């Protein structure tokens, strides 16, 4: 279990250019595996182009109360990157005028941004159809000042999307840290008590499943069935949907893959499971990711790899939806993570 971020450890892999070097070198440089560009070119899917914007994802900071082993953000308590009020105000202007139907707040733990509540209150006034907050659950039980978050979410009709790698304590704590499972269970019960996740409730509660190791997620529908059965039987917990998300070889997960000598096998597994149908609906084609300092990216992964959008509008201050539509998506070998099997996105499978 990681104790600090790669950045704090001064690891080489804290630098995005080092990560990109690895992703383009070795088995991809010597031709053993085909590059993502070459792969999608064969099915005439290169260049990938942005369609109409549907999801605006805003990363309000990399600070987190957890230091998860697989985190592609390299988030943790030692990360200081936090969105300022000035950038939030610029985001709110965009939220008011966007054609996107979904607003998706993420982090780190977004709740740890001191302006989080103010931002949610202001953003909710824009009346976006689906307003998601990605909550790691334990934050709700981390400190008394967060205990009322379930009520706050309910008040603003926030759609809560929470991470839960397994329905057993052992596998959950191994990936996310000791004590995470018990706190997550308590937080889910708190959310259920407010009506979140109940069968006929409009208060949406979805769970995100990431594999706890160097393997791909199983079938999303089957996993959801197993999660629902186990959480109901063991803890009387209910939720709406499970999103099975593939871990991408970025930041701490890349570090783990290399340290555990699983990197090559994992990349083989991703490439072997390549599915052109998933490319068709890959999330970067309908999503825009905004970083804590207001820069624009095709997805949260490209944000972490510091691969900015291929557009004249590169910052929230230059935001222009028409200009951004039709842009060429920036790709590298990490993109295989979103096109393996049934595909993967922040909303789960795509094919």
């Amino acid at each position, binding site marked *: 279990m990681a104790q600090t971020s790669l950045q704090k450890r001064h690891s080489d892999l804290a630098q995005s250019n080092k990560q990109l070097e690895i992703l383009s070198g070795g088995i991809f440089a010597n031709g053993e595996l085909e590059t993502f560009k070459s792969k999608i070119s064969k099915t005439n899917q290169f260049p990938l182009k942005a369609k109409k914007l549907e999801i605006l994802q805003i990363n309000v900071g990399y600070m987190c109360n957890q230091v998860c082993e697989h985190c592609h953000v390299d988030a943790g308590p030692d990360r200081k990157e936090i969105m300022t009020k000035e950038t939030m105000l610029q985001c709110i202007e965009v939220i008011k005028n966007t054609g996107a139907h979904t607003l998706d707040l993420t982090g780190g733990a977004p709740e740890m941004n001191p302006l989080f509540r103010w931002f949610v209150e202001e953003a909710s006034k824009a009346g976006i159809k689906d307003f998601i907050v990605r909550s790691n659950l334990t934050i709700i039980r981390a400190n008394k000042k967060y205990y009322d978050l379930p009520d706050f979410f309910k008040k603003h009709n926030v759609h809560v999307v929470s991470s839960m790698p*397994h*329905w*057993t304590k*052992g*596998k959950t704590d191994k990936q996310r840290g000791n004590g995470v499972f018990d706190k997550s269970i308590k937080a889910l019960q708190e959310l259920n008590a407010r009506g979140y996740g109940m069968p006929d409730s409009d208060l949406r509660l979805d769970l995100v*499943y990431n*594999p706890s*190791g160097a*393997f*791909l*997620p*199983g*079938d999303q529908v*089957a*996993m959801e069935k*197993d*999660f629902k059965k186990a959480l109901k039987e063991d803890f009387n917990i209910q939720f709406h949907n499970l999103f099975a998300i593939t871990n991408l070889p970025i930041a701490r997960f890349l570090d783990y893959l290399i340290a555990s000598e699983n990197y090559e096998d994992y990349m*083989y597994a991703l490439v*072997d499971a390549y599915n052109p149908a998933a490319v068709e609906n890959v999330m970067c084609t309908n999503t825009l990711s905004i970083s804590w300092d207001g820069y624009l990216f095709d997805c949260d992964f490209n944000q972490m790899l510091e691969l900015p959008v291929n557009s004249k509008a590169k910052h929230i201050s230059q935001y222009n939806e028409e200009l951004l539509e039709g842009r060429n998506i920036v790709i590298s070998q990490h993109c295989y993570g979103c096109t393996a099997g049934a595909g993967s996105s922040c909303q789960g499978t795509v094919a």
Partner: protein
Amino acid sequence: MSNYYDDKDLRKFGKISDWNETLGTKFFDYYSEVFKEGKLTAREKSLIALAVAHTEQCPYCIDAYTKDGLQRGITKEEMMEALHVGAAIKSGATLVHGVQMMNKVNKLDL
């Protein structure tokens, strides 16, 4: 040949069809049909496969169905329990032949 078992060879399994496409295709079609959700769940079938992989002592199958189990959210405790079923049948199959030994002894011995 320096190694009889190379884990990289598992990825080449599909190539057996190169030298006999008709039978290879039939086998892989059959194989994928067997593992589909039926009266038994795909999860249950994965655990059966894992146990048989061990009793057959097939390193490729062990790698494949350990990974398959993890992907399905099967815990290591469930995997080990499945293995013991295989091991129990294996040892049972050995020991039940003890009856034949006993029969023979009883017939031959004074």
